């Protein structure tokens, strides 16, 4: 069994909705910041660019180069110093200055050239002057921007956090008449305001995000709980309840699916309705099954009664004529299904004549058994009327054809023995040949008779009877095709030779035991293979003339 802890839909939903809300806020915040940053920075760039143009206006590069190389202040240098001082005072900037980048590594990687000094700073002692080295004011990373500005056209911008706060700087190379860069003119603007705005923006976005996430979560959670979780829990409970009921009770009437009463109109309602239908179907299926099982039991019990009735229709008390000494008779039938299509019969027509009948109805089961009853009754009735056996079968055949919608037919053999003479008149309607034991020859003979057509097959058939003679000690065996056609697992048939063989072995055995021995031999041969056909035998021994 999987012991995994059961997860709840609600918990999962909560986690998912929080993550989802946070993602939306972060995404929106990032977009807002990007747009604001871009537009503000563009504004700064224009501002810086204007100031740089003003500060570099009419600059004599060659003169400035001379000043830098000799570290002396020319007239033009002094004028430029004044211009930068004015710009420093007039515009909202932090610094305006010129430096000459010397190298990347600290310290002293820059040399100051000119620095705009505001009125308020005039008296500061650490103001920059021509030739002043930068010490550790410029980090290696920042110095790199200056070096790169020396070798590029236009303005290089960069943002940087310094001890004076967030700065945005624009750098432009100053060139001599040959176009060689001799210094970098730089303007630093404070972007503290922008950073403050952004910080406030992020804070408010975060706050709004959390509020939105909470509202969103609560709304989603309540909605999902109402529309999905609760209905599913109801369904779950109803289904579990149903399963429990079905385990506890076998009565369909107690198997009630509690309607979870979901009317959401969506898939969950469909699911609920389907479950409802399914359980009702199951209930009606169980009812049907119960009814059919009862019906089946009833049919089975009726079938077993039918088997008993059928068995009781065949003479089954042995010896049947305890006061008769002229003959012995014994018969047995074992149907392949509950009711069989085989039958045998024997009866005294008058005090001197014994009739024996063996027959097989085509097909098996109840239809064959019903047809058998008709056949057996007709044969017995018409035998008692007198006349030749050929005439009896001719009449019986015509009557059977009248009531034979199912195209069934009967193979039948009937013999009538005159107990005074041993003469037996017989008729064969497509039945297995009788086997006769001649005591004087000590052998069993399959009596070759030309058989007529089966009974109930075609109307108007004329049957001919024949005669044979039985002597004292002779035996007559009648049987159905269930014996010679019994098969073993190799699909071999039992056959006539085996039958004659076992008969010879039992020639002196009592009749009832002989039939049991034959049956046992057939079973041994079949070796567990299914019995396909009824097995029926009748044996008579003629003991003495009357």
């Amino acid at each position, binding site marked *: 069994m999987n012991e995994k802890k059961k997860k709840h839909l609600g918990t999962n939903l909560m986690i998912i909705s929080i993550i989802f809300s946070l993602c939306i806020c972060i995404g929106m915040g990032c977009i807002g910041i990007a747009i604001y940053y871009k537009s503000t920075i563009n504004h700064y760039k224009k501002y810086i660019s204007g100031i740089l143009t003003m500060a570099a206006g009419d600059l004599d590069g060659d003169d400035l180069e001379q000043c830098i190389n000799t570290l002396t202040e020319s007239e033009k240098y002094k004028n430029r110093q004044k211009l930068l001082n004015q710009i420093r005072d007039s515009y909202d900037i932090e610094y305006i200055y010129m430096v000459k980048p010397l190298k990347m590594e600290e310290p002293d990687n820059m040399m100051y050239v000119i620095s705009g000094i505001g009125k308020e700073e005039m008296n500061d002692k650490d103001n920059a002057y021509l030739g002043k080295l930068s010490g550790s004011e410029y980090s290696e990373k920042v110095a790199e921007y200056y070096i790169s500005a020396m070798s590029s056209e236009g303005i290089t911008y960069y943002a940087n956090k310094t001890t004076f706060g967030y700065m945005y700087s624009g750098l432009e190379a100053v060139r001599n008449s040959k176009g060689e860069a001799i210094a970098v003119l730089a303007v630093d603007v404070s972007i503290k305001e922008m950073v403050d705005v952004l910080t406030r923006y992020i804070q408010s976005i975060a706050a709004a995000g959390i509020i939105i996430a909470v509202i969103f979560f609560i709304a989603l959670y309540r909605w999902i709980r109402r529309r999905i979780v609760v209905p599913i829990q109801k369904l779950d409970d109803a289904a579990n309840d149903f399963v429990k009921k079905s385990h506890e009770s076998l009565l369909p009437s107690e198997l009630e699916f509690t309607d979870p009463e979901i009317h959401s109109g969506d898939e969950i309602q469909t699911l609920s309705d389907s479950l409802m239908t399914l359980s009702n179907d199951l209930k009606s299926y169980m009812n049907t099954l119960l009814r059919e099982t009862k019906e089946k039991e009833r049919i089975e019990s009726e079938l077993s009664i039918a088997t008993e009735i059928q068995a009781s229709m065949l003479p089954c008390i042995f010896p049947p004529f305890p006061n008769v000494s002229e003959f012995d008779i014994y018969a047995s039938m074992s149907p392949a299904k509950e009711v069989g299509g085989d039958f045998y019969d024997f009866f005294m027509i008058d005090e001197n004549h014994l009739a024996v009948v063996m027959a*097989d*109805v*085509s*097909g*098996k089961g109840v239809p064959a058994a019903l047809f058998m009853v008709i056949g057996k009754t007709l044969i017995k009735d018409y035998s008692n009327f007198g006349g030749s056996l050929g005439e009896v079968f001719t009449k019986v055949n015509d009557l059977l054809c009248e009531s034979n919608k199912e*195209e*069934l*037919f009967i*193979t039948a053999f009937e013999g009538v023995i005159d107990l005074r003479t041993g003469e037996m008149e017989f008729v*064969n*309607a*497509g*039945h*297995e*040949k009788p086997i006769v034991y001649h005591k004087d020859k000590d052998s069993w003979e399959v009596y070759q008779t030309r*058989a*007529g*057509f*089966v009974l109930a*097959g*075609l109307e108007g*058939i004329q049957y001919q009877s024949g005669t044979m003679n039985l002597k004292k000690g002779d035996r007559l065996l009648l049987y159905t*095709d269930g014996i010679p*056609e019994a098969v073993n697992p190799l*699909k071999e048939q039992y056959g006539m030779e085996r039958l004659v063989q076992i008969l010879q072995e039992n020639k002196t055995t009592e009749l009832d035991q002989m039939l049991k021995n034959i049956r046992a031999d057939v079973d041994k041969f079949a070796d567990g293979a299914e019995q*396909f*056909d009824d097995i029926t035998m009748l044996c008579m021994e003629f003991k003495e003339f009357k």
Partner: protein
Amino acid sequence: MSLTIEKKNEGTKDTVFLTGRLDTATAPELDAFAGKELANTQELVLDFARLEYISSAGLRVILKMQKLMNAKGSMKLIHVSDVIQEVFEITGFVDILTIE
């Protein structure tokens, strides 16, 4: 333990080849076949060359087919093996069937 039924059609003549066993279990198949496949047949030939066994239930279907064909044409059996011929003789079916 089964039966294969194949039909060869030549106009109104049908030849039906039966292979296997025609017994209680398989006779209904032939019965059903006869019920729906022989509507336009006037001349029916049953080829028994590969039929191994016939039981009384099988005989019943053959009789039914014979009666059906009696009403609208002819039926004959060919290549009947000795074993099955013996069954036809025992049951008297030789009298009502045309066997070649």
